[in-house]
């Protein structure tokens, strides 16, 4: 791989850009791989990358039904944070945060990870109790966390309307939180993995599994049977569909989650602002667009579009919190399918099928854990045993009741 640098831009600029390499090859699938990763989103590509990079497993294929990063990787609001309440969650999200810090250099691909700070707002006594509990928990876990009073919030965000319908009573700030460029994460991992010999095969849909004596032996695809020593399934919204092909059921529901962007404007809001109290989160992309997150639909669906009322229910709070955005315009809205568990925590687990591993259930907040998820999943697949940080997230917890109920506990879903 020819590295990217300022120098490479200058040299290629002079030579009419004709010498750039492909970011990744598009090979035909081989007959057999040591590991086949199903799903070419951020989590799947990161898994392949760390398998090759850290686990010495290079005979790896990533197979993708459509185009790389076309699912939730390319549809989220790009927020990265690790300020989770529960220890198990803090374990994986902070693991990811540490990988984010340095990812551009590691991948030699600028994923524009920008630690511009992430502020959760509290609008009620109940919200204050929640951020109080969570802030202290984060602090005990050694993760950065600060309480802000309304005056401090106003200083940080002069454009905020503190005295909105639900007045802002305080906030919880994680300065290391922020955003990253979502597409670049997928492309950067793809390029890095490809460089180490991972075959990335797009437009290759899975049609079934080759399972013998309870052990996975391969994957049947639109490009034929691909043999596999181990299979990692990382397909988010369609995890249940794949599990059904493999003969087991997943405790997941798939629902549409929407987001929108405004027209680009000059910098007006620097940090990421999240309000669970009135249900909106917003940041401004480097291009200048306000990136605004909405809620998920109440109805189960596989169609990548949601109901318009969810858009109304996020634009209202946006304008209430930032009245000066009223004259800006919504440029684009879209939806993705998120796979949600009953405890709103992901599943990183073995399955009833030997050597078939699954990584799913990230619900509305998977992007932020892309490096951590891939890293832990790669190590788990390579070892054949779940990494200790991933172990609490096994499917078994839905039988034992050892839920990691971040949603219930913190009332924070995103």
């Amino acid at each position, binding site marked *: 791989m020819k590295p*990217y*640098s300022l120098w*490479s*831009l200058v040299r290629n600029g002079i030579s009419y*850009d*004709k010498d750039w390499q492909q970011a990744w*090859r*598009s090979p035909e699938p081989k007959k057999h791989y040591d590991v086949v990763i199903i799903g070419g989103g951020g989590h799947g590509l990161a898994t392949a990358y760390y398998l090759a990079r850290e686990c010495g497993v290079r005979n790896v294929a990533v197979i993708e039904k*459509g*185009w*790389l990063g*076309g699912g939730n990787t390319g549809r989220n609001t790009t927020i990265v944070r690790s300020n989770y309440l529960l220890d198990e969650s803090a374990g994986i999200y902070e693991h990811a945060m540490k990988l984010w810090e340095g990812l*551009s250099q590691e991948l030699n*691909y*600028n994923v*524009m990870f920008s630690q511009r700070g992430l502020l959760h707002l509290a609008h*009620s006594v109940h919200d204050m*109790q*929640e951020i*109080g509990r969570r*802030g*202290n928990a984060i*602090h*005990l876990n*050694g993760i950065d*966390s*600060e309480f802000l009073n309304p005056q401090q919030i106003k200083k940080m965000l002069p*454009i905020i309307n503190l005295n909105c*319908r639900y*007045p802002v009573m305080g906030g919880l700030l994680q300065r290391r939180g922020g955003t990253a460029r979502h*597409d670049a994460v997928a*492309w950067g991992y793809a390029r890095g993995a490809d460089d180490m010999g991972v075959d990335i095969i797009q437009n290759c849909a899975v049609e079934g599994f080759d399972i013998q004596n309870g052990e996975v032996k391969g994957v049947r695809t639109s490009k034929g049977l691909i043999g596999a020593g181990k299979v990692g399934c990382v397909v988010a919204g369609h995890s249940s569909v794949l599990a059904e092909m493999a003969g087991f059921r997943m405790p997941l529901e798939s629902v549409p989650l929407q987001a929108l962007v*405004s*027209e*680009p*404007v000059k910098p007006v809001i620097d940090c990421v602002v999240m309000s669970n109290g*009135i249900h909106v989160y917003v940041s*401004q992309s*480097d291009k200048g667009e306000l990136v605004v997150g909405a809620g998920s639909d109440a109805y189960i669906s596989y169609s990548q*579009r949601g109901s*318009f009322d969810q858009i109304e229910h996020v*634009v209202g709070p*946006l*304008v*209430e919190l930032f*009245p*000066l955005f*009223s*004259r800006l315009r*919504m*440029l*684009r*809205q*879209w939806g993705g399918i998120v796979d949600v568990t009953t405890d709103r925590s992901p599943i990183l687990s073995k399955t009833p099928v030997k050597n078939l591993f699954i990584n799913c259930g990230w619900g509305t907040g998977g992007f932020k854990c892309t490096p951590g998820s891939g890293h832990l999943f790669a190590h788990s697949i390579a070892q054949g045993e779940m990494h200790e940080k991933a172990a609490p997230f096994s499917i078994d917890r839905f*039988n*034992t*009741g050892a*839920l990691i109920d971040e*949603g*219930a506990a913190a009332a924070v879903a995103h």
Partner: protein
Amino acid sequence: MSHVNRIEGIGRIRRGRAVRFYYDGRQYFGYEGDTLASALLANGVHLTGRSFKYHRPRGIFTAGSEEPNAIVQLESGAYTEPNTRVTQVELYEGLRANSQNCWPSVKYDIGAVNSLLSRFLPAGFYYKTFMWPASMWMTYEHFIRNAAGLGKSPEQKDPDRYEQLHAHCDVLVAGGGPAGLSAALAAAKTGASVIIMDEQSEMGGSLLASDETVDGVTAAQWLKTTLETLGTYDNVTVVPRCTVTGYFDYNYLTAAERVTDHLGIGNGGYSPRQRFWKIRAKRVVIAAGAIERPLLFKDNDRPGVMLANAVRTYIRRYCVLPAKSVCVFTNNDSAYDTAIAVHEAGGAVTVVDTRQSASAVSVKRARDVGITVYHGYAVSNVIGSRAIRRVEIRRLSDDAQSLVGDPVTVNAQVIANGGGWNPVVNLFSQSRGKLRFESGIQAFVPDKAVAINPSVSAGSCAGVYDTAQCLATGAEAGEIAARAAASDPKPSVPMPQLTKALAADAVNGRDFYVVPANTGAAEGLLQKWNDRGYSKHFHDLQNDVTVADIHLAATEGYRSVEHLKRYTTTGMGTDQGKTSNVNALSIMAGIQQTDIPSVGTTTFRPPYTPVTFGAITGQNRGELFLQARKTPMHAWHELNNAVFEDVGDWKRPWYFPRHGETMHQAVDREALATRQSVGMVDASTLGKIDIQGADAAWFLNMVYTNAWLKLPVGHCRYGLMLNEHGMVFDDGVTTRLGENHFHMTTTTGGAARVMAWLEEWLQTEWPEREVYCTSVTEQWAVAAINGPNARALLESLTDEDLSDESFPHMSYKSMKVAGLDARVFRISFTGELSFEINVSARHGLALWEALIDAGKAFDLTVYGTETMHVLRAEKGFIIVGQDTDGTVTPFDLGMSWIVNKNKPDFLGKRSLSRTHTAASGRRQLVGLLTDDPDTVLPEGAHLVEGHVRRVPAVTQGHVTSSYMSPNAKRSIAMGLVTNGLDRLGESLTAQLMDGQMIGVTLVKPDFLSIDKSPETKPEKGQ
């Protein structure tokens, strides 16, 4: 007034009405009926802005909503609006607009240095650099962010009003051009209710700039007559200035109407600035027209390069000839109309046609009037930067892959660029309709609609370009839609489509998109198409994406349409790629040596044009953002100085400070007075559900953990509800009013959730059971009186016997209180003797005032939610949602007594037996006493073992409730602690983020040393 480009004629402007406006601080004049674009062009202003990335000078490119270039900062201060397309702004007196994304001025822009460096700034360059040193990224990014963005956000609150409107109709017609108008007319004739909307200031679409004869009369006359006819139908609503922006499932469409924008700041009167329509249409006729597609050539972004139909529109509709000399560059017949229009307007015109020959009527007509036509030529160079000075053209090779021969210079200051048409399939595509690529017109057209979104496309958005055919297809579509709406209101079968065949090859165009830059066919592809130097072939004007960028993306493997789009940012601007998408596909198809449909098409996402956030919000802001719910006694609370707390949607009195009391002082006073004499709280907000039916008792037995079948009529019982995980979900007291009739109470915040939960079980799991749930929260006003004198107070207002024998704890009586019909429940959330008096909501204030009057004899004190919390905490009563969080079982709360293990089933029962849920050592609710009685623990503080501060540290649990208790005369708290119930008496330390370490002892959560009250069981929720 120097209208250098204004010409004779009528058009649609009103010459008697001059309008003054300012652009970049300079004063100009236009006429009523002008857009800002036409008025600027009339004044000879072409340069209207700088491009996003390279800061190249840009001008007005179109005459409509597809405009990528000419976007300005409209007005200033609170009224400012960035990124506004000058082509859609109607001129009004005093309008002020400024160019954006340039400094110090649009003429001399420092940012243009990017243009000089452009060969080193290809698509996606930022992914390849700015990585060293890593610590510098935030600094690099600071500059990137400031360089990016377009206009500026307002800095003040929006002073304007907006509103939302819901509408239903049989037929919605999206687009008011010839096809849309004839569709509306045909549908109206059947008696169907019709709404027709068009984004322009007046209906008519292409007819507004047409010299055609329509149905034997002029286009203008036909338009006038048609609109008059439509006006005679009561069942037709005609809405100009209204863009149908979104098409969602089950024919739910959104539209944005610019109601008073065109009147100027502050002139809207009582009307809103914009109105957001939400329409449910039985059938939809899409008549959204077509957008002209530009040909791509070297430096095709110069101010003065315009779409051919835009030039025609400026001439015929606005009487503006954008330049005295015009070069029409085209690959098809339709642009010849522009040539003729220029000629008739007195301009000099040269046609450059990529085709070797053409024989259409319009071509002949152009030749007949003496217009010079170069066949087989293409524009090879544009001379001039901020304006076009002249144009160079060269002959195309036979395969159109290179330019041959010497350049010919054409004197022209405007290039009218016509490369064919793209039907506006956006709405159809949003409706999940499938598109088909029609090679005759080199464009995507609607193919199959999905059954749940029945629409029919007519006119040029269906690929029908001839006006007569637009009228015919429109009329047929209108009639089909109206008949279908009448016969099949909820569509079960796909809608019939037009019988009229698509007029393939209607424009007789050449399959030609890009003029090659160099002659050197022997050079590599990238060099051949190179525009890394100062000269460029742009295909996305707003985002500065060039033909070479697409080649680069292909070289690097970003070949999927979505990768191409995301890597190069093509089509991602505020114009959403209306003039660039198909060109981008064609270039990628050329590179991959395949056809456009094989490359694919991107998803057309709503909205069609950007929609103001304020309009989407409508009136739902401030007080109405989420309308505050207020109890019938609210007015009294306000008069009596209550401080309110938001609990869900409700405004609840938090505390009632007197004479400058602090919150702490007020709560102390309220809490002491209640336990000493009597206190009263407004409990109207409690969720109340009336449950009736033969299976009502069975139902309660399933949703609560304890036994309900044998509860006697007239008695109350406290219950806990669990979710499927066995976790506490809500609580409250439910009373048996009759054999099959119960009155359930829930927490204030949980009322709606509980109601939905009950209904979900009844509707999805137990539909055979006869149970009816009705929310009656707002039907009852509730005053709860607590304290030793509560009975005496109530006795003074009723004749009923309130003795323990007649009216025991946990029972209910119907009686008159202060002459009002009341339901009185003897239940307690404070541990004191307590009565909850329910009256019809309209009598709530009367009851309250009667109690206040009668209470004077007992020193009655009114208290708020904070005191309520203190009083319940003093007794160790929980608040669901505060002391529980969805991870807490009844056992964790030390409430095993409420779980009836003998019942065959109840919701959550199975989960309670799961190994982890049934395990010992879980987080359990205990009381917490600080070592220092004056220290109040912060709620949310975590407890650790030992006294030494450590990070990281293992939490032993957290503080859920914490107060200063005036009755216990010390601070009290409760918390969820690991294995807490087995650790009573142990010490832990609260480790706070600010460094404080506060020692605590675990105790039973009952903090009143002397238990004065007989009513000790927890009785009800918040």
